[in-house]
């Protein structure tokens, strides 16, 4: 099993030559997929592993994006130095978003309260105009890594690939440890988890903070990719897309987060040739996957080979 998992390292290696085959636009779509992988990974830790129906993910995403944008624009920091601060700010936002859950708010009540957090952040982006550029948004300076300008899409691809691998490896280690077991124990039965000596509050806080950290990094990548941030990018439609990623991919599965991000980010591009039907086809795709694969795309792979069965909590 452990040796089989080592083969996962082949995936980023096989992706290295990808930019050779892609034009600028397709490369942009590939980069967008890499942005949405950590979006799904972080969201999935909170919803899939920790089992908390919290919809504050877009807030973490926006906070990460604006943190990078502001540090680059106002302080002149190069992009690569803003990635970690974006993650940390996302993590702090995650910790803040866990407060209702720590007060015992659950399920639909938690969903609506955390949803409000996302909308509140949108109000901040609009109102804090001197810093965020208000409704018109802000132009993000050209990103760079150690003086190496990410001025073509293929360079962003490599920078993002490194970040995505780091995020997945770290999250995988976390989820396969006593921390990850505590998360799924809380999801399964909080009372029983506490009876095992697990301080459930601390782990709920940690799960939210880790989710926020990872999604904050995704936000930083998003700022580097699109070069322009506006409040409209962080609205409810965005939240629904992010939620669809983990539902279609598979709750509580890292493999699922990757597959969901890839399919739902790439699909609209395939449908672009059929103008007028894009939204319809996109909606049908989600319905069909959920209908026939209620445990997500990850369950297909898990059935094919146990090495892909990466979740502790199997529905």
């Amino acid at each position: 099993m452990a040796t089989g998992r080592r083969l996962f390292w082949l995936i980023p290696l096989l992706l290295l030559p990808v930019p050779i085959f892609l034009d600028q636009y397709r490369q942009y779509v590939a980069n967008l997929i890499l942005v949405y992988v950590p979006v799904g990974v972080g969201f999935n830790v909170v919803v899939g592993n920790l089992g908390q129906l919290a919809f504050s993910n877009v807030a973490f995403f926006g906070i990460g994006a604006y943190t990078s944008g502001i540090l680059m624009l106002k302080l002149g920091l190069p992009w690569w130095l803003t990635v970690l601060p974006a993650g940390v700010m996302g993590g702090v936002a995650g910790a803040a978003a866990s407060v209702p859950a720590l007060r015992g708010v659950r399920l639909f009540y938690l969903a609506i309260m955390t949803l409000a957090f996302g909308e509140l952040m949108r109000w901040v982006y609009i109102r804090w105009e001197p810093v965020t550029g208000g409704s018109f948004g802000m132009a993000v300076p050209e990103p760079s890594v150690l003086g190496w300008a990410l001025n073509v899409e293929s360079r962003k691809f490599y920078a993002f690939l490194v970040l995505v691998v780091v995020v997945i490896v770290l999250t995988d280690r976390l989820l396969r440890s006593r921390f990850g077991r505590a998360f799924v124990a809380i999801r399964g039965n909080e009372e029983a988890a506490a009876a095992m000596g697990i301080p459930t509050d601390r782990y709920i806080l940690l799960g939210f903070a880790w989710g926020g950290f990872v999604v904050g990094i995704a936000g930083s990548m998003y700022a580097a990719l699109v070069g322009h941030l506006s409040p409209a990018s962080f609205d409810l439609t965005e939240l629904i897309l992010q939620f669809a990623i983990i539902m279609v991919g598979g709750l509580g599965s890292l493999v699922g987060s990757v597959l969901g991000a890839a399919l739902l980010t790439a699909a609209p591009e395939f449908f672009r040739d059929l103008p007028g039907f894009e939204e319809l086809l996109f909606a049908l795709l989600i319905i069909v996957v959920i209908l026939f694969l209620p445990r997500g795309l990850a369950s297909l792979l898990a059935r094919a080979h146990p090495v892909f069965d990466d979740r502790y909590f199997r529905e």
Partner: protein
Amino acid sequence: MPALLELSDVSVRFGGLVAVDGVSFEVAAGEICALIGPNGAGKSTLFNAVAGNVAVGAGRVLFRGDPIQDLTPHEIAARGVRRTFQNGGLFGHLTALENVLVGLHTQVDSGFFGLLAGTPASRGTEAAATRRARDLLALMEIGHTADHLAAELSGGQQRMVEIVRALATDPPLLLLDEPAVGLAPPMREKLGDIIRRLASERGIGIVLIEHAIELVMSVSDRVVVLNYGRKVADGTPAEVRADKKVLEAYLGHV
């Protein structure tokens, strides 16, 4: 030396209702103490009060001489008071092995950053915990269930996994909430043997809530009888069996 568990004048109130009313008793290491009484007598509430799941209104709960009545459930569990649940507290969507690993939580002390860095020490800690969890299941003769989902095991196997999980950290005190419910008679006997051995061979103090009266009478050193939240009898099984107040508690005034 203080008793393993000492309840002194413990009361629990839910609004105007007094669920447990001034109950006192002690449990020594290696002693099996059964808690019996009609439905609604306050047995489960008293259990929850000891485990920290309901607030103790008055009185004290001492574990090895230290007051624990104001601690949270996870703090009490970390000190070595472990419990099983009446309606099955297993994580059904985790395997038997993973359930036991969760039970070992407080002993798997891999640090957060060491884990993220993938240090050999943190890997070693995790691997050792997994080995120990497998050994514990094998010791109770349910090693073959290790990689099966808990929800897919038979009722008897589930009960055993839950006991293994509660015992994983070698706790000095075990609270068993109706462990025999739903078990066939031969399985009940086996359970009785296991409970006796845990107390006599490992010196674990056991508090047992149980309606299966033959099991209670055959394994217990002491029986505490509750009725309407009050202790009405406390003695050996034979003494309690002969006590008129116990009959009254179950049958009403005769």
